[in-house]
């Protein structure tokens, strides 16, 4: 119970500071909107067989704009000098990690929901019949993204070339998550039944669990100075 309360304190702190400035959510949503626009120019969306590339476009815009936000998760703490306070919280490194991860997850989820709603209009995409399977993919994919992203955000926040470092560390490791999410989304949008994506969901769930476990085991070493 004590753990949950402390965890909530960290999540609440992130949510409050974001609600006051709103800069992260706004910039993430705006950026992903722009990525969608750029893609629709680049691929001439709406003509011919453009349905096939929608899953790829969606996930690329999630990942690109998500990375913007996730980098700030620990980056802002460093800039404001609040990181020492965060690490001095009377709780385990795992708790600190989990708190930051939940915050990132919430922000990324808001951006993802925004992007999906925009793309239903821009790409004439009807997601209502696929809401349950698509929601499941997005939940597991975003969870994996926040899990890995938060670890690398903490690592890259200590370096000088912060955002570049985050991308270089993040992309090779996130490959299974991106493949699984894109393929599963494609299968669902094709109108296939939910059974068709079980193997992809398994990979996503395995990815999430493995990285949560790794974060549990190693996060203490990351914040050690």
């Amino acid at each position: 119970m004590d753990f949950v309360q402390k965890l909530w304190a960290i999540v609440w702190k992130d949510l409050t500071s974001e609600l006051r400035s709103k800069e992260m959510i706004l910039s993430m949503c705006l950026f992903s909107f722009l990525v969608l626009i750029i893609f629709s120019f680049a691929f001439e969306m709406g003509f011919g067989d453009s349905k096939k590339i929608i899953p790829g476009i969606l996930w690329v815009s999630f990942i690109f704009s998500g990375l913007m936000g996730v980098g700030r998760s620990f980056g802002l703490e460093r800039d404001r000098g609040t990181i020492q306070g965060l690490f001095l919280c009377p709780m385990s490194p795992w708790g600190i990690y989990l708190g930051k991860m939940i915050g990132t997850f919430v922000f990324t989820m808001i951006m993802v929901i925004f992007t999906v709603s925009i793309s239903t209009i821009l790409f004439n995409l009807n997601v209502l019949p696929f809401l349950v399977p698509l929601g499941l993919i997005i939940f597991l994919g975003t969870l994996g993204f926040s899990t890995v992203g938060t670890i690398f955000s903490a690592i890259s926040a200590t370096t000088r070339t912060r955002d570049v470092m985050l991308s270089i560390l993040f992309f090779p490791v996130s490959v299974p998550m991106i493949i699984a999410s894109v393929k599963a989304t494609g299968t669902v949008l094709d109108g296939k039944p939910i059974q068709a994506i079980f193997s992809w969901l398994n990979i996503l769930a395995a990815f999430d669990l493995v990285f949560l476990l790794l974060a549990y085991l190693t996060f203490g070493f990351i914040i050690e100075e």
Partner: protein
Amino acid sequence: MMVTHKKFITETIQFITVFMMLAALYAIFFYAPVEKTMGIVQKIFYIHVPSAFLAFFAFLITFVTSIIYLYKKDYKWDVIAACSAEIGVVFCTIVLITGPIWAKPVWNVWWTWDPRLTTTLILWFTYIAYFMLRGAVRENQRANLSAVFGIIGFVNVPITFLAIRLWRTIHPVVITTKGLNMVPPMKHTLILTFIAFLFLFLTLLLCRTRLENIRIDTEKMRALAEDRFDQE
């Protein structure tokens, strides 16, 4: 006493490596027969496969020594992890270069998105990132952060392989397991090159860690000398 003992071992291993590499070269070009369908280009197989094995082995060493470092906090292990990863990247690069050279005449393409090829490429990117990270972080955090990344990068490999295999199931399998149906001279040559490459790895790792330790010592001495100089 200890130093001469160590030197003796190093020199012995170096000697064996030279001998084994020469023997392997002889076996590749004179002992192993020319493959019927692929012709002379198939010889690259004896470099390609042991290199792939060695790259993977080197990253495994990085993974294990990273864990030991986090557990024991002895910088010795961090040095071994970094040096092994460096050798791994070199051999991974060799795999990625010899692969397309072999693939172009045989499959008629430089590259396919086969699970093994793609996983190797991702592995290469992962360990390039490992070195970028080492270069970018502060001295006091370098060992910790790179050990964590060394572990994460390696654990990710099987998941990546699974995901890519599932991704490409609709496509025909391009690589078949040739390992089992080879004529004995080919098999012997392959085994010989494997052993030679393993010794090459040992030699490289010993030299590289020694060099790294000397570098660290020199830096310490230089810092000491500068302190002395500042005082005077």
